[in-house]
C-alpha cells in the first residue's frame, strides 16, 4: 500500500515539472503587453489622442489573463508543495523506522553479547557437570556389576544342577531370576556405552581385524542364552577367503553383541538367528565386507522404521514383548558403524523376521598409515 502511494505521488511530481507554459497564453500575454505599450506610447506622444476609454479593454483583458495565469501557477505550486510535504513526511516516517530498527539492532547486538557470555559460562558449567556425570555413571556401573555377577553366577550354578537337583518349578523360577539379572546387566552395559559415546571418549583404534574369528568369539558368548531360549544360532562361514577389515575390535564386538542380543531377544523359541559374512567387493564396487544378522523374530513395524535407530526409541511390538529395555542398542550400533565409515540398514517383515546388514571397510596399507 505505502509503496504504491509513494509511487503515484512521484509520478504526479514528474508531470508537474514537465508541464509546459501554455504557448497560447504566452503569446496572448506578449501580444497584449505589446499593444498596451504601443497605445500608451502613442497616447503619451500625442499621436493618438483621446483613446483612454479604448485603452481600458486590452488592459482589463490583460489583467484578467495575468490573474488567471497566476492563479493557475499558484494552484500548481500548492499541489506540488503538498506532494513534496507528503513525500517528506513519508521519508520522515521511514527515517524514524530506520532509526528504530537501528536502535533495535544495537539492543540485539548487546543482548547477543550478553547471551554469548552467559552461554559460555553455562557451557563451562555443563562440561563440569558432564564430567561429574560420566565419572558417576562409570563408577556406579562398575560397582553394580560386581554384586550382579555374583547373583548371575549363583543362579547359573543352581540352574546347572551343580548344587543339587532342582525341581521343574524351581528351575522355572531360577531361570526367571537369571534372565532378570541378565537384563539388568545389559541395561547397565548400554548406559555405560551411551555415556561413552556422548562424552565423546570413544577414540577409535583401527586395526586389521579378522571378522570370522571375532564373530566366532561373540557367538561363543551367546551359547548359553540361545540354548536356554531354544533358539538356533548359526554362523554361515564364507566359503572363500574374507579380507581383514579396518576396525576397532572392541567396538565391533559391542556392535555384534547389540545386534545379536536384539535378534535373540525378539525371536521366539524354536526360531533361528543366522550370522553371515561376505565380501561385498564381489557384488558391488564398494571395498567392504558385509555382515548380515538374520532372525525369525517379531519384525519391525513399517510405521516405525524411520525411528528405529533413534536414541531411546523402542518398537511398540518390542515393548509389548519385553517391557523393560533402554532403546539404546541400535543407536549405539549405528554410531559404531558410522564411525567406521560403514553403513547399516535392515529389511523386515512383521512376524517373519528382520535382517540387519552392516558393512565395514576392507583394511589396506593406506588405512594403516592413517
Amino acid at each position, binding site marked *: 500500500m505505502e509503496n504504491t502511494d509513494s509511487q503515484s505521488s512521484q509520478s504526479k511530481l514528474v508531470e508537474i515539472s514537465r508541464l509546459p507554459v501554455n504557448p497560447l497564453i504566452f503569446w496572448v500575454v506578449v501580444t497584449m503587453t505589446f499593444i498596451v505599450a504601443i497605445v500608451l506610447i502613442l497616447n503619451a506622444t500625442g499621436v493618438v489622442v483621446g483613446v483612454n476609454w479604448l485603452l481600458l479593454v486590452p488592459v482589463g483583458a490583460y489583467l484578467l489573463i495575468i490573474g488567471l495565469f497566476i492563479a493557475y501557477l499558484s494552484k500548481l505550486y500548492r499541489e506540488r508543495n503538498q506532494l513534496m510535504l507528503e513525500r517528506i513526511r513519508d521519508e520522515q516516517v521511514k527515517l524514524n523506522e530506520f532509526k528504530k530498527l537501528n536502535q533495535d539492532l544495537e539492543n540485539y547486538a548487546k543482548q547477543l553479547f550478553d547471551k554469548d557470555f552467559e552461554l559460555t559460562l553455562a557451557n563451562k558449567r555443563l562440561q563440569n557437570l558432564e564430567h561429574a556425570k560420566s565419572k558417576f555413571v562409570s563408577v556406579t556401573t562398575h560397582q553394580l556389576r560386581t554384586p*550382579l*555377577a*555374583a547373583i548371575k553366577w549363583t543362579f547359573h550354578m543352581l540352574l546347572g544342577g551343580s548344587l543339587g537337583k532342582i525341581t521343574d518349578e524351581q528351575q522355572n523360577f531360577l531361570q526367571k531370576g537369571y534372565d532378570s539379572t541378565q537384563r539388568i546387566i545389559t541395561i547397565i552395559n548400554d548406559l555405560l556405552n551411551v555415556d561413552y559415546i556422548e562424552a565423546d571418549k570413544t577414540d577409535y583404534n583401527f586395526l586389521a581385524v579378522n571378522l570370522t574369528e571375532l564373530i566366532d568369539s561373540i557367538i561363543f558368548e551367546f551359547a548359553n542364552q540361545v540354548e536356554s531360549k531354544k533358539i538356533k544360532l548359526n554362523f554361515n562361514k564364507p566359503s572363500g577367503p574374507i579380507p581383514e577389515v579396518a576396525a576397532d575390535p572392541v567396538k565391533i564386538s559391542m556392535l555384534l553383541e547389540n545386534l545379536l542380543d536384539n535378534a535373540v531377544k525378539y525371536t521366539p523359541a524354536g526360531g533361528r538367528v543366522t550370522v553371515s559374512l561376505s565380501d561385498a567387493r564381489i557384488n558391488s564396487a564398494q571395498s567392504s565386507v558385509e555382515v548380515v544378522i538374520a532372525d525369525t523374530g517379531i519384525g519391525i513395524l513399517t510405521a516405525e522404521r524411520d525411528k528405529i535407530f533413534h536414541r531411546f526409541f523402542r518398537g511398540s511390538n518390542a515393548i509389548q514383548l519385553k517391557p523393560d529395555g533402554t532403546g539404546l542398542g541400535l543407536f549405539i550400533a549405528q554410531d559404531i558403524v558410522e564411525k567406521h565409515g560403514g553403513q547399516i540398514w535392515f529389511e523386515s517383515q512383521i512376524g517373519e523376521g528382520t535382517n540387519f546388514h552392516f558393512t565395514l571397510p576392507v583394511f589396506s596399507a593406506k588405512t594403516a598409515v592413517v
Partner: protein
Amino acid sequence: MEKTSSENKKTVLIVEDDEFLRSLTAKRIEKEGYGVEVAVDGENAITVLETLKPDLILLDLLLPGKDGFEVLKKIRSNEAVKAVPVIIFSNLGQKEDIEKAKSLGVDDFLIKANFTLDDVVAKINKLIAK
C-alpha cells in the same frame, strides 16, 4: 579327565578380593578338575607367586592395595612365571582398561557380569588343556 591324580592336575591361581565371587569361582574351576589356589589381594598374589608356578592366573583388576595391573607387571617381569597365561576377570572393562591390560600382555579380558563361570571355564580349557 585326570580328576584323580592330584600331582598331574593343572593349577589355576585365582586373584579375587570379593570372598563370595572367589569361592564361587574356585568351586566351579575345581569341579572342572583343576587344582585351585587363591589370593585375596595384589600383595598376597605376589607372595603366592614366589613359591607357586600356576598353569594359569585369573586376575581381578580392582584390588585393595596393589591393583591387578601392578600384579600383572610383576608377573611379566618374573622369569619363573613370565609365560603363564593370564586372564583378566574384572568388572572394569572400559577401552582404556582393556588396552592397558593388553599392552601388559594378557591372554584374555573377561568382564565378570557379562560372562558365567561356565564361559570362564571354557576359556581356561581353551588356553590350557587339562
